[in-house]
């Protein structure tokens, strides 16, 4: 060891001597023969020989620089001999020594390190990767644009270790649940903060499906407003240290989006991306097709019994006889339901077009404008999503000291008929899911084709008015969400000659949503309720203002030591304003506007939140291998206890680049990192610290009006609320080998959440059902591994493989003395008896369900009369956590000449889900398992198979808790990059690819539904499944043109 060190020293000394000699020699040479002349040249890609336009050619040691033209040519004046530095984003820069040659051909090699060497960290600060003391993952926007999703967030699924992305199966613009390193709140949202070019973007979910198994409609979230074509990179800050500078807002992790910019010195550039995909429903059901509609082994005998048995497939063996159906029409009693999903759900089409113009100016200023148009005709009939995005980003250099960055985006969105899901009245998929095998879904269309009968009322195909005809749900029930969103920011930064800078940024995210929901008086359940139709028209205005003032300077002490200081202050104000008009009884038929309501009701609500913060960081660097960052942020909250001021969140992180000291063969980078941070979390609703008093209508007795008061809202306000705290310790390593052909990143962390603000159930004799208390205490342990490799890399063929794997297991440590908190229960009309709880000592999100009663020996008690357990005598058992502790993804990219083949596989493992679909499949006689033993009687009472199977299903609901594990072949891209030469360099790039997403499921454990069929993005229902919109597969073409 000692010897090595000694050798190393000698080695270094030698290097220094040789280098010094060379420099001296060079200066001697230059002093001898100096001439000024024009040098011409071309810059091409070393691998493809394609020209590189826009590359910068600079004379080393001077300010002289030019860019290459569209054909990759340049000409530059220089005094020879000299060195030209040629650089272009994404390529390793190259130095070319010019002595007396007049032309030069420079070949640049694509950098594999480009994204990794510099990383974007909190507040958008770029840092050298080697200096960062915590885990950070960056994804290129390009990977999200080919096989795209309406919300770019869904495209992140499986790509980043520790980032759990789950979409909600609720229609064309459904929301997405993103959890980074496990939940940080037992009952509230654990979704990360999204920041686009330093502007925090609001990701509110104004309408979520219900938590009780009845579902409802999902209103989408805020991230659907982003056009993936505008994204340059996405950086995910996972740990507390990474996000500490965001204070309370970084508690759940931060997703930083950097948008595309113009490139300095480059002329006008045009980029066009067109994407067209088709979308088709995936039918996961595998039901019996031996027995048809009916009960007790017989087919319906009249229209009434047909109506009553629309969700009962306990009829006779299918025999082709003419049997009456719900509409009184006789049809063959034979297997007809195959393909019902495909008959009802149409082929969707999704067209995306983006055109972007960029211009770079010689002074370094750049600008980019883009227009994107998305038109999604959903595979759900009569539903869709449209979006237009206009964005502009301008980076101005005003003199040598001042920069001004201006960006703005205008987005207009229209979501049509995001349907009701699960067991909600008006639900689209319930009846489609459970139609008896002999019923063809198209018979439900009715004479008008929209699920209405001759009288214009809903053609209710079942005895239950709350089971809505799917055609009626699609074509007559109406929902619309119109959104207009404007985001703008201005960021000025003045750098003094001394190195100090002052920056001021003002950003605002303004959103105007209009949500309309109409339940016409013709709906069967509306008729039943006797409310004459109803509608809601809600206008939500939302604005978030952020003002940031920053200042700082980098101090260098000698050659080896530097400190980069940053100080900042943030003011944030968030306002949501809701104005709702609605009511029931439409006075005039077919006129669905609020002034046509006989019993109108209006409401207004305003949510105000205000936060003030001071923050600072100091980055210490010693030589190029030892780094330490210390940050602190003090937050003042409007939503928490008034008067308590000091909430200081510290973080410390360090990095040691050991490869700089130890020369390990073939290792390019070896780094150890550690970090510790404490960040706080605010409560996500205002006005919880004070008791409020209001009104709930007026009663008029004998001509005298008395307004009726109300105090509080059932939850004890807490004027002593303090922020929750996430303390996290993280260690990790990054290692690159073989010229970056093999990369390895490992992170291990322990995260402890304390003081989580939880609405704890209290005894109602206190007058309240909940008290908002700082009692939640969760701990997560996790490991994340990312492995990248380029097993083959030659001129014509390369193979790159990236894999990631993560483990995160959370446990509830305590709940302020309570043993558990109930999150939700799946209590629909279908006798589901399951609920979710947070239980002290167990993993988060536990699923409980009914199990049959047992005798003293643990044997299931069978009711002798039916031969099955008695569903009224059940016990509640625990069936494990809904959270998947294991997750991973694997990407493979092959390149052969101009062909590209990319595919991705991802999976999640270890979680559980309670499936109401499978429960109802059994009780309604559709499940394959109910096929056997239909013709015999059970128990001493000789009961029908329907009673026997039904009792088994209702008494033992635990059997419908399945493993939620799956592996999916998520996407495939097969593309061809046309060489620019083919177009005489008129077109710089043309790329055509075939894309497919949700290609197929490699492994799953839950029958009849997709394992990702969640109906709500709320944490409370993550362990529940009920018939939501079936999953779809998309496939189509992507065309990208760069002019």
């Amino acid at each position, binding site marked *: 060891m000692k010897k090595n060190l000694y050798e190393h020293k000698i080695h270094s000394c030698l290097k220094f001597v040789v280098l010094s000699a060379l420099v001296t020699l060079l200066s001697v040479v230059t002093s001898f023969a100096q001439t000024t002349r024009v040098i011409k040249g071309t810059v091409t890609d070393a691998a493809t020989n394609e020209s590189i336009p826009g590359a910068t050619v600079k004379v080393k040691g001077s300010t002289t620089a030019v860019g290459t033209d569209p054909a990759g040519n340049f000409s530059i004046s220089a005094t020879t001999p000299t060195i030209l530095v040629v650089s272009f984003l994404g390529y390793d820069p190259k130095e070319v020594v010019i002595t007396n040659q007049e032309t030069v051909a420079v070949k640049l090699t694509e950098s594999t390190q480009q994204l990794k060497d510099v990383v974007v960290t909190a507040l958008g600060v770029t840092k050298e990767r080697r200096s960062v003391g915590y885990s950070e993952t960056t994804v290129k926007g390009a990977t999200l644009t080919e096989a795209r999703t309406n919300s770019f967030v869904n495209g992140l699924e499986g790509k980043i270790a520790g980032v759990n992305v789950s979409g909600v199966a609720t229609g064309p613009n459904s929301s997405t649940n993103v959890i980074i390193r496990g939940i940080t709140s037992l009952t509230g949202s654990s979704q990360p903060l999204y920041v686009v070019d330093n502007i925090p973007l609001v990701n509110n979910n104004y309408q979520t499906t219900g938590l009780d198994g009845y579902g409802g409609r999902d209103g989408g979230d805020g991230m659907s407003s982003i056009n993936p074509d505008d994204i340059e990179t996405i950086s995910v800050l996972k740990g507390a240290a990474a996000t500490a500078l965001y204070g309370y807002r970084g508690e759940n992790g931060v997703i930083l989006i950097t948008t595309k910019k113009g490139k300095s010195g480059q002329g006008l550039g045009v980029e066009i991306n067109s994407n067209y995909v088709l979308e088709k429903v995936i039918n996961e059901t595998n039901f019996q097709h031996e027995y048809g509609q009916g009960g007790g082994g017989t087919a319906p005998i009249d229209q009434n019994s047909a109506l009553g048995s629309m969700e009962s497939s306990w009829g006779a063996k299918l025999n082709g006889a003419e049997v009456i159906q719900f509409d009184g029409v006789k049809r063959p009693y034979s297997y007809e339901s195959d393909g019902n999903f495909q008959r009802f759900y149409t082929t969707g089409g999704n067209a995306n077009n983006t055109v972007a113009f960029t211009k770079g100016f010689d002074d370094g200023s750049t600008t980019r404008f883009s227009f994107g148009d998305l038109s999604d005709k959903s595979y759900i009939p009569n539903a869709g999503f449209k979006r237009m995005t206009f964005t502009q980003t301008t980076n101005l250099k005003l003199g040598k000291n001042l920069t001004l960055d201006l960006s703005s985006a205008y987005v207009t969105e229209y979501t049509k008929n995001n349907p009701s899901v699960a067991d909600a009245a008006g639900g689209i998929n319930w009846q489609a899911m459970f139609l008896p095998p002999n019923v063809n879904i198209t018979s439900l269309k009715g004479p008008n084709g929209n699920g209405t009968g001759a009288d214009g009322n809903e053609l209710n195909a079942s005895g239950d008015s709350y089971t809505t005809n799917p055609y009626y749900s699609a074509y007559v029930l109406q929902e619309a969400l119109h959104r207009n969103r404007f985001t703008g920011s201005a960021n000025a930064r003045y750098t003094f000659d001394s190195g100090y800078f002052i920056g001021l940024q003002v950003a605002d995210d303004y959103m105007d949503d209009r949500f309309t929901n109409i339940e016409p008086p013709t709906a069967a359940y509306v008729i039943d309720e006797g409310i004459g139709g109803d509608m809601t028209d809600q206008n939500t205005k939302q604005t978030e203002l952020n003002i940031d003032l920053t200042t700082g300077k980098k101090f260098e002490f000698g050659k080896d030591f530097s400190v980069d200081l940053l100080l900042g202050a943030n003011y944030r104000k968030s306002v949501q304003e809701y104005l709702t008009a609605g009511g029931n009884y439409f006075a005039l038929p077919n006129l669905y506007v609020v002034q046509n309501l006989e019993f109108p009701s209006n409401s207004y609500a305003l949510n105000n939140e*205000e936060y003030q913060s001071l923050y600072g960081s100091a980055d210490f660097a010693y030589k190029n291998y030892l780094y330490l960052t210390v940050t602190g942020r003090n937050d003042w909250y409007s939503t928490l206890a008034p008067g308590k001021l000091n909430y200081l969140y510290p973080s410390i992180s360090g990095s040691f680049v050991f490869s700089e000291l130890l020369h390990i063969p073939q290792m390019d980078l070896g780094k150890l990192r550690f970090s510790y941070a404490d960040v706080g979390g605010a409560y996500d609703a205002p006005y919880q610290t004070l008791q409020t008093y209001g009104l709930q209508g007026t*009663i008029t007795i004998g001509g005298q009006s008395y307004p009726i008061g109300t*105090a509080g809202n059932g939850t004890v306000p807490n004027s002593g609320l303090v922020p929750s705290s996430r303390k996290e310790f993280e260690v990790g390593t990054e290692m690159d080998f073989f010229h970056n052909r093999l990369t390895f990143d490992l992170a291990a962390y322990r995260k402890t959440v304390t003081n989580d603000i939880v609405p704890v159930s209290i005894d*109602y004799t206190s*007058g309240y*059902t909940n008290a908002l208390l700082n009692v939640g205490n969760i701990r997560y342990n996790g490991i994340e591994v990312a492995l990248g490799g380029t097993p083959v890399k030659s001129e014509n063929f390369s193979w790159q493989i990236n894999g990631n794997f993560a483990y995160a297991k959370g446990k509830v440590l305590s709940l302020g003395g309570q043993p558990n908190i109930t999150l939700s229960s799946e209590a629909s009309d279908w006798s589901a008896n399951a609920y979710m709880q947070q239980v002290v000592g167990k993993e988060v999100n536990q699923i409980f369900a009914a199990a049959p009663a047992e005798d003293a020996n643990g044997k299931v008690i069978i009711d002798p009369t039916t031969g099955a357990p008695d569903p009224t005598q059940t016990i509640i058992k625990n069936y494990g956590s809904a959270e998947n502790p294991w997750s991973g993804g694997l990407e493979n990219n092959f390149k052969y000449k101009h062909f590209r083949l990319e595919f991705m596989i991802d999976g999640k493992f270890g979680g559980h889900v309670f499936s109401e679909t499978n429960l109802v499949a059994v009780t309604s006689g559709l499940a394959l398992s109910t096929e056997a033993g239909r013709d015999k009687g059970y128990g001493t009472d000789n009961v029908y198979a329907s009673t026997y199977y039904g009792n088994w299903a209702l008494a033992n609901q635990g059997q419908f808790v399945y493993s939620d594990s799956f592996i999916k072949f998520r996407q495939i891209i097969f593309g061809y990059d046309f060489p620019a030469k083919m177009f005489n360099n008129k077109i710089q790039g043309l790329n055509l690819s075939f894309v497919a997403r949700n290609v197929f499921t490699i492994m799953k454990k839950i029958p009849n539904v997709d394992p990702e069929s969640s109906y709500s993005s709320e944490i409370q229902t993550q362990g529940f499944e009920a018939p939501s919109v079936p999953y779809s597969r998309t496939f189509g073409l992507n065309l990208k043109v760069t002019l």
Partner: protein
Amino acid sequence: MKILNIYSIAVALLLITFASCKKDLLKANTNPTASTAANYDPNLLLTEVELNYCGSQAGENWGTEWCGLAGFIQHIAGLDGYYNGDKYINSVGNFGGYFAQQYPSTVQPVVELYHLTANNPKYANLHQMSRIMKALVFERITDLYGDVPYFQAGLGYYERIYQPAFDPQKDIYTDLLKEVSQAVDSLNSSADLPKGDLMYYTNGDQIGAWKKFGNSLLLRMAMRYTKVDPATAQKYVAQVQGQTFESNADNAIVGHTPASTETFNRDAQTILGNDSGGIKINKTLVSDLYANKDPRLHVIAYLFRNDNQSDTISADQHGLPGGLVEGGLNPLYNIVFQDADYWKANGLTGYSTINSNLLNISAPTLVLTYAQTELLLADAAARWGSLADANTHYQNGVAAAITQLSAYGDGATLSDNDASTYLRYHTLSSNAITALSQINYEYWVCCFMDEYEAWCNWRRTDNKTTLNATTGARGYPSLVPVNYPGNATGGTIPRRLNYPTDQKISDGAAYKVAVARQGPDNLKTRMWWDVDN
């Protein structure tokens, strides 16, 4: 130097900005669409308390009152699984309902009203009314369940008591009497006239009316001491003598309207919204009213004839015997055998049900009436005073009980003449025991629709001496219990209601203390004032 200056200015600006913003944060967290304690008019809460005392929107009127008590006390009966209080089958969820719903819906706002008005001269009378209302609310809760959270109840916000202790009923009653006495004494006719008062705001003498209301309530509470502590009862009877209600015009009545769910009559809302077909008037009540030629029969009962026309003719009314079901293996408890001919001819619709006079969304709730008060005074006089006084109060009470029905509208109005005719045939006996029986029979009739009170008074008057050894009947009125197979009391009329089962978990320790002190949490355990002597 220059740079340093700019720096100092920037930093100073930052600090100034922050120092000046703390108050704004507090303001930002004040809901602009709601009021704070400082600017709220607590009158609105009196309106809420008066309404919610008549039942919350959560349906305890149905579960506890109509599925339970009204059957215990043989006002109604049913054959299905809902209205089975007539069979003393323990419906744990339903019977715990009153407890579970009234604390959050009524105790909470009355405690708020109490605190918001305390020590505020602007609300001097409103505060005293809050004390009376609070006593009214807790009186019923403890009368149904015995030991209940009282002193610590409803203080989740004010004192952060999340798991209130259960208090002995005796201590609760002592405090109730003290509170109402003090409140009545403190009402001041020259102070505020609370405009949130549904019961008496339009009364010409609002404060005077509240004094009478408070004293009438005191009388009712004191009379609960009849068996356990007659001396205290007598003391308070003497205290309120001559200061209670003087006519039906003084009745405490809360009106209801069809405007919104907040303003509905809860009995009607819950019965019509759940199952109005299965609720039938008990044969005991119909037979007694018919035998007594009571003019109230056709006002409170009606039935549907075979042609589906409603029929209010007294002679046609047919009560449903308690303790029966339709079908089942044992003919003794099967309506098909027990009322074979009538059942065969008319079916379930042929049995009298509650007349829509009384059961509709706009029907008022009679909270406390002159008739009840007079009958209690008659009871007190018959027990501890003179039968002459008892007779006066009896006459007043019975007449008022008949004429008070006019509160339900023209269809329910009976004349003074109807009352005097009835009284002519129902004079008070000169035998004190018989007189007590008569007085409390009348109380039982006039409490129809206030099932809580009907049941309480029966328990108050029932002791060993009221047992009829031949029929097994007890109390005033003399009710013969049923013994339906599998009932929860062994064939005796329930003495209390069980606590809701969630109390075992949500307030477990306090619950255990209460059960250890009071006795098993079932329908048979007697509460403090209901001694068997």
